């Protein structure tokens, strides 16, 4: 299953060059991970089993504008023993109905046990959520 989120750009996402600033894209990808975060951390399951972000990479493929119609798609691309990757793509729908990929992000997370301040194997709950969002790749039907 892929977590999809419509992204609504705002003027504050642009910069003096007239297009979407790259920092806004990083923020949007974080926003798009929220549904997955919410399932990983339901209200009754907090410490000591936590997650920390280890590395975030974003590739900016196409310039975006404030009036673009955008959708972020997120899924688990790798499940390791103590870490996992969330891959995300930002897709734009054109006026003619076609789609194009505008940005890609990969975020690597590691478990952390807050009592021992070390990583630990992913527990059953985390694994269930991550498997639910596992996909080989997102829809790639750019025209």
């Amino acid at each position: 299953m892929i977590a999809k989120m419509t992204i609504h750009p705002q003027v504050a996402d642009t910069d003096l060059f007239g297009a979407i600033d790259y920092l806004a894209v990083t923020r949007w990808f974080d926003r798009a991970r929220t549904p997955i975060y919410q399932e990983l951390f339901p209200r009754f399951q907090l410490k000591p089993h936590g997650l920390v972000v280890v590395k975030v990479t974003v590739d900016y493929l196409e310039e975006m504008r404030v009036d673009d119609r955008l959708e972020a798609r997120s899924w688990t691309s790798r499940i390791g023993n103590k870490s996992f990757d969330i891959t995300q793509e930002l897709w734009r729908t054109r006026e003619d109905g076609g789609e194009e990929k505008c940005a890609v992000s990969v975020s690597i997370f590691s478990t952390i046990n807050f009592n021992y301040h070390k990583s630990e194997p992913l527990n059953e709950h985390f694994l269930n959520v991550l498997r639910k969002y596992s996909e080989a790749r997102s829809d790639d039907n750019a025209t």
Partner: protein
Amino acid sequence: MYFTTTVTPQIADTDMQGHINFLAYSLWFDRARTQLYKEISPNLDFRPHGMVVLKTEITFLKEVYVQYDVELRAWVSVLGNKSFEMTQECRQNGELCAVGKTIFCAFNFEDHKSEPLQDSFRAVLEKYQWREQVM
């Protein structure tokens, strides 16, 4: 050689996990590059010779806390014909907490396409060239 900027973290940089949120690092690294940007384009308008960001990557090594200043170092780690990479480091209390790499491509905002780096632009980048960060 690298150049240095000091930033005082603010509450708005933190999140519910109790430390600095990863997005704040992106903003700090952007701020850390301003000194270099101003040498390329003093009024920061980059017309017509500017650059666009192709890729960013940040590796988080250690938590950063809101109550202490952070020292940011930035330098040019790879210099090509059209594109270049900058490496940024974030330190708190002398310890390396995060490393960011940002790849840029020289871009002409009038023609709206990439172009080879202009001589004056390249000269500034060479001034701030330092080792390639191996992470």
